[in-house]
């Protein structure tokens, strides 16, 4: 096998977010931000990404690795590693238990030591798990550039496969998540082998109060050109009482609204079917988690111990 190595490029380290942005400006669109490197370096090896320059932001970890509650939001810094999200008590208490479920099946523990939230969502791989989680939770990306900050919802963030709204002089610094009353959530994934990208994955988040769904987020991964936001299902859920038949209907909508391709991971029809099944399952477990407490996460764990 031929050795894979990135094309020649220049390298520098950032000393602060402002310094990173100044460097991006000076390099005029020819640079990429390098965080954990577990998406960008493989892309560079395959020559699918050929930046003339990489700006290493690992020195900014003290500034950009955090998970905190601020007002009615949870804010996660762009350099927060997957392992930190997997092990965060604040995330498991606030969003039971979508982060743990997605992070537990995202790549492997050694990759999760390095890979970051910012790297995952900026890679904009339509099959990646965490982007589905961010979409279902209605997270918003905070982009900082020379003119200051702007906040972009996931709808406008992922423009296509491997394409985001981040301009060449901007970097993602944070993702913000609204805290929802009576929250329950779940992530379901079917993969070929441990740690692989999904054949199909579904992320679901619900807010249930007084027996009524007041918040619904549904996203599917690996079944379209971007993470697929299943808006029709969300609209059908809000204002209703949670029930298995309602979640069945929402799953059918997901199945209809995704646009998978046939490839080595399965046929389009198969993926469409799986998207529906996983969406229904994720919604059932999200509702159970919202109403029944943490026991359902343990069920999930015993399920993956197969």
């Amino acid at each position, binding site marked *: 096998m031929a050795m894979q190595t990135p094309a020649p490029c220049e390298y520098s380290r950032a000393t602060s977010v402002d310094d990173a942005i100044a460097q991006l400006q000076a390099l005029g669109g020819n640079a990429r931000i390098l965080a954990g490197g577990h998406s960008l370096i493989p892309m*560079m*090896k395959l020559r699918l990404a050929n930046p003339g320059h990489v700006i*290493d932001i690992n020195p900014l970890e003290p500034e950009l690795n955090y998970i905190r509650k601020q007002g009615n939001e949870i804010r996660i810094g762009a350099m927060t590693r997957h392992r930190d999200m997997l092990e965060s008590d604040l995330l498991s208490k606030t969003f039971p238990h979508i982060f743990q479920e997605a992070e537990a099946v995202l*790549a*492997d523990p*050694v990759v999760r030591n390095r890979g970051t939230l910012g790297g995952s969502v900026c890679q904009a791989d339509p099959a990646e798990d965490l982007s589905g989680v961010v979409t279902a939770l209605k997270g918003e990306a905070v982009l900082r550039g020379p003119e200051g900050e702007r906040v972009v919802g996931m709808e406008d963030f992922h423009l296509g496969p491997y394409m985001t709204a981040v301009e060449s002089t901007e970097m993602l610094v944070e993702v913000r998540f609204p805290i929802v009353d009576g929250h329950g959530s779940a992530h379901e994934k079917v993969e070929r082998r441990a*740690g692989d990208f999904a054949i199909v994955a579904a992320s679901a988040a619900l807010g249930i109060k007084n027996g009524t769904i007041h918040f619904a987020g549904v996203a599917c991964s690996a079944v379209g050109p971007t993470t697929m936001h299943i808006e029709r299902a969300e609209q059908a859920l809000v204002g209703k009482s949670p029930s298995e038949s309602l979640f069945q209907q929402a799953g059918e909508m997901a199945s209809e609204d995704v646009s998978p391709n046939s490839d080595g991971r399965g046929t389009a029809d198969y993926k469409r079917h799986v998207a529906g099944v996983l969406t229904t399952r994720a919604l059932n477990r999200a509702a159970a988690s919202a109403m029944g407490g943490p026991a359902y996460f343990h069920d999930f764990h015993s399920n993956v111990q197969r």
Partner: protein
Amino acid sequence: MQVSMTINGQAYSHDVEPRLLLVHYIREYAELHGTHWGCDTSNCGICIVLMDGEPLKSCTTLAAMAEGHEITTVEGMAAPDGTLDPIQQGFHEMHALQCGFCTPGMMATGRWLIKKHPNPTQMTDHEIRDGISGNLCRCTGYDNIIKAIRWAAQYEADHAGRS
């Protein structure tokens, strides 16, 4: 560019191309061939070394990103007098290697799993299997690898506080 790091307690510094991967720095510049180079896609875990005590895939890390960090490879695991680290002794005791290609990476991950677990002797098979899910053994000798990690955890518990 100039890159400097500590590998197994020894300082190294070289003028390298920025695109140089850490695995090639370790093998070709530091001339430590115990770290193997496998799938090159961060899947197989052959190239795992410890950076500041945490395992990382050195085929998916630029040498420049290790600037100022402490790297431990398989050559740095044993004590200076040659006494094997318990994880190495465990692999010996439990016959946890056949071809040996995955062994340095497996031992680095195993070393870390024992260190980070609050009660290492109570690790479940699932925890160990999940923990090494980023390391592939081409010989499929996983059962003995799991026994070796367990052996090391038990040995350390039995010898805690002694030197």
